[in-house]
């Protein structure tokens, strides 16, 4: 409820306006060599990071776009992409 999300089109808005779209897991894998296990992992398994993760959001009560943000799951604060990159380097 206290969450705010920054939509690339509409700016920082109340979290109520958005729908969560899950963790960033990369594009859909090529179907050919998928096993039930690896497919299930792609669809259902999550890292559930306690910390910063990249995740998808949909601006349902706004412009209707999907985009990803970085959010600290322990504080619910959005994190700038730059900060994430810097921390990973350090």
């Amino acid at each position, binding site marked *: 409820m206290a969450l705010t999300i920054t939509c690339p089109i509409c700016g920082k808005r109340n979290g109520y306006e958005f*729908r969560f779209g899950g963790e960033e897991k990369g594009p*859909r894998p*090529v*179907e*050919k060599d998928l096993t039930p296990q690896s497919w299930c992992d792609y*669809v259902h398994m999550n890292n559930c990071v306690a910390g910063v993760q990249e995740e998808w959001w*949909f601006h349902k009560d706004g412009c209707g*776009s*999907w985009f990803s943000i970085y959010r600290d799951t322990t504080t619910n604060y959005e994190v700038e992409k730059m900060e994430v990159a810097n921390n990973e380097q350090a």
Partner: protein
Amino acid sequence: MNRLNALPTLQIDPSRKISFIYRNKQYYGVEGDTVATALYSNGIRIFARSLKYHRPRGIYSLDGECSNTCMEVDGIPNVRCENTLLKDGMIVKEQNVVGSLENDRMSFIDKIDWMMPAGFYYSTMHKPAKIWPIAMKQIRKVAGLGVLSPEFKMTGKYDEIFPTADVCVIGGGPAGMSAALEASDKGLRVILLESRSVLGGFFEYRSHEYKEGQSYHDRAKELSAQVEGAEKIRVFTNASMIGTYNNNLVTGFQIGGKNDSFDERYMEIRAISVIVATGCIERPLLFENNERPGIMQMGCALRMAHTYGLVPGDTAVFSIGHDLGIETAICLHDLGVKIACVADIRKSGQASKLVAQLTERNIPFLTGWVATKAHGKKHIKKVTLATLEGRQPTNYDCDLLVASAGLTPLTSGITVAKGTVKYDGHTGCFLPDKMPAKMYAAGRIMGFDDALSIESSGRLAGCRAALDCEACSTTELSDAKNQLDGLPDPAAGCKLVIAPVEGRKSFICFDEDTTIKNINQAIEKGFDVPELIKRFTSAGTGPGQGGIPGHNLPLYVAKYQGMSDVSIRSTNVRPPVIPTLIATYAGSNHSMFKRTPMDEMQRNDGGIFRNIGVWQRARYFSSDLSCKNEIENVRSNVGILDGSTLGKFRIFGPDAVKALERVFVSDISKIKEGRIKYSAMCNDDGCVIDDGVLIKQGENDYYFTTSTGRAGSTIEWIRYHTRYDDWDFHMVNLTDSMGVINLSGPNARKVLEKIVDIDMSNTAFGFSEYKEFQLDSTIPVRCMRLGFVGELSYELHVPSSYMKTVWLMLGEAGKEYNIQNFGVEAQNVLRMEKCHIILGQESEQRTNLLDVGLGFLWNRNKTEAKTVGAVALRQAENDQTRLKLVAFKMENKGRAPRDGALIVDKKVRGYICTARDSFTLKEGVGMALVEGDLSKNGTRLEIYEDECGDDRIYGEVVPMPLYDPKGIRMKM
């Protein structure tokens, strides 16, 4: 009781009487009264009986910090009367008593308190385990305060608002007002919350001198006039903060006054920065019988007189630890109260001006003395005072004891947002330590005692908040800082933890009847942290939300354990920090449903409407809910149905086909113009989520329908599953701008031909084909030949604005055939007989495309498309354990089972999706999802209905479809 009526500080209007009922008798208060002050003015002194021991309780804080004045008001139990504004006709009742508040027959429990040590229930009632159910019944009889009548219905208007501001200031005292003014002077939009009905806080009710020739009260009025005159400050009075969160969200609720459109409203305020200026409450003094009626806090006694015009006693004794106590004694003396003694816990540090005023008035003044015991059964009669070491105990007769250890900051606004507080040895208080981002403290909450420092800290906080909003220069900020630095620092506070007593009847928590003795017992059992002791003894878990024990509990635990100051840990506060009605959270119940363009006309035709998803739809057209006439009319003649709730979309652009192939299981590239393609969508588990038809309108331009329930999330779904692909396509949701008319029955063609000027013959416009034409050379129609109900059928997609016209044209044309409306229920039966599924009825969350027999839609060769669901479908293809959709008919022409009835043998083997007594087939039929081995034709199904006991009904699996197996009728 006569009111003082000449004080400038009064917030009541004694000339305007308000009547209310208490114990079935009529009483009167005056405008501005709370329920508690109105009762007090009528001589009521006992307001409640305590939770466990049924001890008498009276007015203590006036701010709802304990349950002492909890009563039943207008059927709502546990209302804190001391901060509930009196309204005309209120019905007030006592609670938690056997007999009356004056003579509660349960009060004997107070004498057997030794039987109930801390953790009594936890440690006794479970051995042997058999005892618990019996014990529980007995405990439930006596536990709790108020009782909610099962017949009670909440009345009143509840609303909600979600305002935004640059700066939100919590607390409308001198610091909060100064902060708000500072921020608004810098051009910012400010929201100011004040829980009382007037601004002014700690200044508002005081008549002492703020500066030469101006009282605190006058200063409060001066500031509040400025605030009310400031255009950019939006003031909410009677508005309590109940929670603060990160990203500077503040929640609260406001109580409406006479002229407001709501009784209470929930507030959710989003600001760029937040200032917490909630000030202080008082720290209760711990001594024997410290909660007898007649004992009250300093601010309470002063506000009783100054705000409500009520003299709180005839003869008063003061046992206090703050200058406000001395000030109160002087004020009450001047209002005619006899002050027997003022005993200050502090040995030094009092303002000399105040001490001089005591001397002038010949009021006995002791320093280093404290109350140790209150006497009197139902109301205080005398008090024992002693030195801090417990020597020279001396009794004083009195009917009012003002008792307070001093002030303590109300920090919940900070800690709930995950800020921290730290014990400060100088003031003896928990002061704000680490603040959440863009949140600032101001005023007395920071320990300031000096009036100018308080205001100055407010202005500084206002500057800091303005800096966050980029509306303040660093010079302005440092000026504000320097100004505060030049003013007095926080004063030393009273650090007495407990009077020199053993503590059997010294209450640390009034709500839960927790005594010092209970705390000792908990510590001796090994609980060492205040937060755990709070849990074990339940101190601080009552309606006051820790207001009374919040400060004393950690102090006492530290003292008992001989800890140093630095390691004193406060207990946690959680939202809602002020008890809030569930009704306030719920807000008002808006009935928000969409209506189709045909809504009014169908209602005029006798349609019976139901809420279906986000829509209101005509479900029946007669009181015969089996819809016999509607069904038979479609099967033998022609019926008309409003299908406007269907999801309708256009998708176009170079990559439109790719996007459709991603989400639909079929091969979209093969759709030919003029033909209709029925297809379905799955999720990544292969479970079928939607079905609909697609038509090709032009190159890379498609029109498709979805089920009513999925219309709202279709665009989201398609965009989600193509979010990595950077494809070039666009979608338009036409659900509301297009209406749909379904014309079905053997006479449908004859009706339609009359208004259409193209060839409608079966060879020119066959089943599963699509045509566009205009009616009257004006109205564009997309017409599809479908067969959902199993008859000759046309679906007309028409712009919403033309819907009524087309409907009327068809009605006119169909007159000679006696065309009739049919509703959603008739359609449901018709399509069920044809075994056409409705997703959500013939499927549940785990049902995949193959289970419902739609596998033929799936094109398994388009792996490049990465179709959503394809991988899982391939993996599920040979799974024999899945439920399968079957048709069945009842044995021996028996009645159809209810939807949702279970298929059983020794265990549950499936369930009935839809079943009806079919007028067409003249028997009970339906569809069911059953385990694979029950899906063969001829299998006997044993059906269990709710509450059927040992009775079962039986059906038999038969081939699909049940009606017109060769599909002649829809193709004729």
